[in-house]
């Protein structure tokens, strides 16, 4: 990214920023994406745009290299996509066969015969197929390919969400409109105040409790004082 360029003014700079922030997630989305060269799927266009602006414009040979590289990476991406699909099909095939067998057993040749009521039909279809499909889901959820895809989906979603959130904050901030960060900050202050009030309340409660204990002791002292008074009175009477 060129130093000192203000975001939002130069379309090429904007494109570069977008590319820098999101391409890592795109490039590694599919299993095995960490291996091999990463490539911007729009690299040829990017190079062309850059060439149109820069003085040292990319020549036709350079452009051909870029196209070639792009083709190779696109092919590898598709290959990984097909491999992932085949892996899933591999997992699914036996479970589908199992489900088909259950449907045959429970719905077509079962004691109750083929269900005539639509609700009954769906219910029995679910009962017949849910276990094999649940096992298929379980297999898939443990599968390395699924785990990689789900991790990358989350990474990818997080990157986009982060970009969108920061851009929104900046946009509304420039318009001098309150943003989520502002309300969060405000809420944080209220929470801190609430915490302090709670601490004061706790101290008061402790104080009240201690005061109660002191009062109890004072009552005890009063009783001792009474006894001493009575004792003194009795002693004075005796000596008189």
């Amino acid at each position: 990214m060129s130093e000192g360029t203000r975001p939002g003014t130069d379309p090429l700079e904007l494109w570069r920023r977008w590319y820098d922030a999101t391409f890592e997630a795109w490039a590694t989305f599919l299993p095995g994406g960490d291996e091999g060269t990463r490539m911007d799927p729009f690299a040829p266009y990017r190079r062309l745009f850059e060439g149109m602006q820069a003085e040292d414009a990319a020549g036709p040979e350079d452009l051909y290299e870029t196209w070639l590289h792009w083709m190779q990476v696109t092919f590898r991406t598709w290959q990984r996509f097909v491999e992932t699909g085949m892996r899933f099909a591999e997992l699914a095939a036996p479970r589908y066969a199992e489900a088909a067998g259950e449907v045959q057993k429970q719905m077509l040749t079962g004691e109750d015969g083929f269900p005539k009521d639509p609700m009954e039909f769906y219910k029995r279809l679910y009962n017949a197929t849910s276990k094999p499909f649940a096992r298929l889901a379980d297999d898939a959820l443990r599968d390395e390919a699924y785990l990689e895809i789900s991790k990358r989906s989350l990474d990818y979603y997080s990157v986009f969400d982060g970009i969108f959130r920061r851009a929104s904050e900046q946009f509304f901030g420039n318009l001098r409109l309150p943003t989520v960060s502002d309300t969060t900050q405000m809420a944080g202050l209220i929470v801190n105040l609430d915490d302090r009030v709670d601490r004061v309340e706790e101290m008061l409660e402790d104080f009240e409790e201690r005061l109660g204990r002191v009062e109890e002791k004072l009552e005890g002292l009063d009783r001792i004082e009474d006894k001493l008074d009575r004792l003194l009175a009795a002693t004075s009477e005796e000596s008189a």
Partner: protein
Amino acid sequence: MANENGAPADLWDLFDKYAEGVKTIVEGAQADTGQTPKEVIWTKNKAKLYHYQSQAEKKHPVPVLLIYALVNRSYILDLVPGNSFVEYLLHEGFDVYMLDWGVPGREDKDLSFENYILDYMPRVVNKVLRNSGAEEFTLFGYCMGGTMAAMYAALFPDKPLKNLVLLAAPIDFAPEKSDLYGLWFSEKYQDPDMIMETFGNVPAPLAYAGTATLRPVDNYVGAYVTMWDLLMQENLTEGWRAMNKWANEPVPVPGAAFKQWVQDFYQQNKLVKGEFMLRGRRVDLSNIRCPVLNLAGDKDHLVFCGQAEAVMDLIGSEDKEFVVLDAGHVGLVMGRGAKKNLWPQVSNWLEPRSE
């Protein structure tokens, strides 16, 4: 029989049921949950401490404090009248309190187990004792709430803690014991820092998906097959509505607590190793010396029996009991099975220990 428009009544009935089914799918089931009368006796940030009111005679002087997880709503313990653990305990003569962690906002992203265990819980315990006039109390923790209760008990093992009841409380997070969660939360596939940096808190839909995806066919299809079946037979039961409402009402999880949950518990299993620290204080489960009842469900797919059982060898209590019930994670506390198994089990165990 036809109605005033000339259409068969059955047809209109079918339309009504269809409309209700679609409404339930789109808007989620509606039910009046958490109906047992209660008084809020303390609040801090989003957390609330409830004291349940009852007409029944209080037979046991030791109050029971219920604590639920950070990931869902606590009203699962007081679902609907007739299907409420809280209601049952009150009926059995217990004085019941519940700590509801509430729904965290974005400003709560830094709340961690340090805050919950060292700041909130001791304060709540003081409130319960002051309010009840008791000198001791029973701590009951369910799910992650159980793990939190065990941590509290390890850090504050002496009086006033009288009894500890753990229900489906994960303690051992070793990958071989925690199955899919262990795999999903492994360092290879989970980066809590990234989630915390991006979202602050774990968004509620993500938290929901994390649970529902463990059993996708049951949760995304089976629940609605049951719904249509119930609708077509007669109508949705209050229990189904309440359960569906609870399952579809997740809460965001504070980012810092989630990070600890994933890194310290699932990835490094620090609690079992005695390495988990809260503000420099080591959480040593062997400090727990009070009577402990530990319950788990053999059909629980969220917290496995082995994860819960692990605490039995780590605590220093002499009076301890581990019970495995024939139930899943939620079936442990609600439904017909819970009424027959868990509720009386807890009550019978607590009765002689609550004098």
